[in-house]
């Protein structure tokens, strides 16, 4: 069995105070893992801890030596003025992308500040998944997406399976079940039926 990319063991993390934990899990290379929990339970904090942006109180978070990370924040940066088109955006994301999904191909020549919220979200996730990092962290990638957008997202997630590992945070349990190899439940309450 290959060495895990990431091992959390009794991890308690937060900022001034602990927000979430204790948690124990491991991420294997190439697998897509969903992280489910109700709003405010600390899902984003867990991703921030992996991205060295939150404090670890107790437990441990071990990364495989030389692990490369890509991190899509909950709100991808969207400036008031962004004189970049989709091609620029992909280039500066260092995304190795050539053939976009059909629906997305039409947007790449547009300035990204003229895209709708859902269009921009899909572009941002597609760019991040194209970085070919060992582990890609996606924070609420279904934000602003309509059902068709969620379907495209599930397809592009399938395309990276086996190439990069993805840790995907969402409060939409059904989407996670559909798009991920497995789902880690970090909520105190049970997932919806």
């Amino acid at each position, binding site marked *: 069995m290959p060495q895990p990319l990431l091992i959390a063991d009794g991890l308690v993390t937060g900022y001034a105070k602990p927000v979430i934990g204790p948690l124990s899990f491991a991420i294997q290379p190439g697998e897509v893992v969903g992280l489910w929990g109700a709003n405010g339970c600390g899902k984003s904090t867990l991703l921030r801890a*992996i*991205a*060295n*942006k939150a404090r670890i109180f107790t437990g441990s978070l071990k990364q495989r030596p030389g692990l*490369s*990370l*890509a*991190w899509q*924040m909950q709100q991808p*940066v969207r*400036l008031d*003025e962004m*004189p*970049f*088109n989709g*091609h*620029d*955006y992909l280039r*500066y*994301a*260092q995304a190795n992308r050539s053939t976009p999904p059909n629906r997305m191909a039409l947007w790449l020549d547009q*300035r990204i*500040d*003229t895209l*709708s*919220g*859902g*269009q921009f979200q899909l572009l941002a996730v597609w760019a*991040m998944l194209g970085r070919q990092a060992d582990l890609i*962290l996606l924070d609420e990638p279904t934000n*602003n997406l*309509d059902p068709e957008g969620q379907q495209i997202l599930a397809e592009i997630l399938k395309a990276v399976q086996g190439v990069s590992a993805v840790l995907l945070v969402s409060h939409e349990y059904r989407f996670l079940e559909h798009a991920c190899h497995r789902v880690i439940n970090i909520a105190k309450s049970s997932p919806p039926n």
Partner: protein
Amino acid sequence: MIWDTLFIMPFLSGFLVAAVLSVFGVLLRLRDEWLAALGFAHLAGASALIGMAVHIPAVFSATFGAVIGAIIKTISHFRGGTVYALMILAGWSITLLVAANTRLGGSLGHAMVEGQLYFLGFSHLMAATMLVIVMAVGLYWLMPIVIRHRLFPGQDAANQRPTWRWRLAFDLITGLSMAIATATVGLMAAFALAFIPPWIAFRTAKNWRQTLIISFCFGMVGYIASFVLALWLDQPFGPVLVALLLIAAIILHVVDRRHCVIERPLKVGRSKDRWKVEK
């Protein structure tokens, strides 16, 4: 008259500075640090004046002051535009105090604010040439990093890559360019060249490459027109440049707004609403 050998050196010095600022200003705007240009210009103006009071060439003393400002900005932890406001206030206060307490201080102060383009010498041309070289190398290295960090923050922290090197380099280049520009075309003209062409380019360009080209062309046309006009009308160069850039920017802004009302889609919403016409 412009081809008079007396004006060739000032023209070339200002030309190089205008080229640098109109391109570098695009990165300042992208980082939301355009106010830094004004802060560094004030610091550079003040230190240039101190230098001239003790017979050090303005271009060297201005650079020294701006570099000190760049280092302070990098290591300080002020939030938002606080550090730029402090630079502006400190620069303004020092400039006026030095001007009030030295012989010829008043006229030197005016020269710094209005620009002393027509009295530039070989040292200014050399400094401007050096700035172009530093900027060409610096931008080749820095531009992708600055853009990546602006659009995709957090990647460096996630991969435990330090950011202080490129941040310091960016601040030093900002300080250096504003110092040489302030000593060359004057304080407000330097700020206008770093602010107005990028502002117009950000509104009108369709992609990043076009942003750089529009800003560069706008800055160069503005500079050449101002140089000729100021000579022809016997006016101070700095205010003429600022006035011309402002007039052109306002006209383009109005035209662009009318264009936006018709064609620019709504920013947020479902795709079927995107081409709704705003009223």
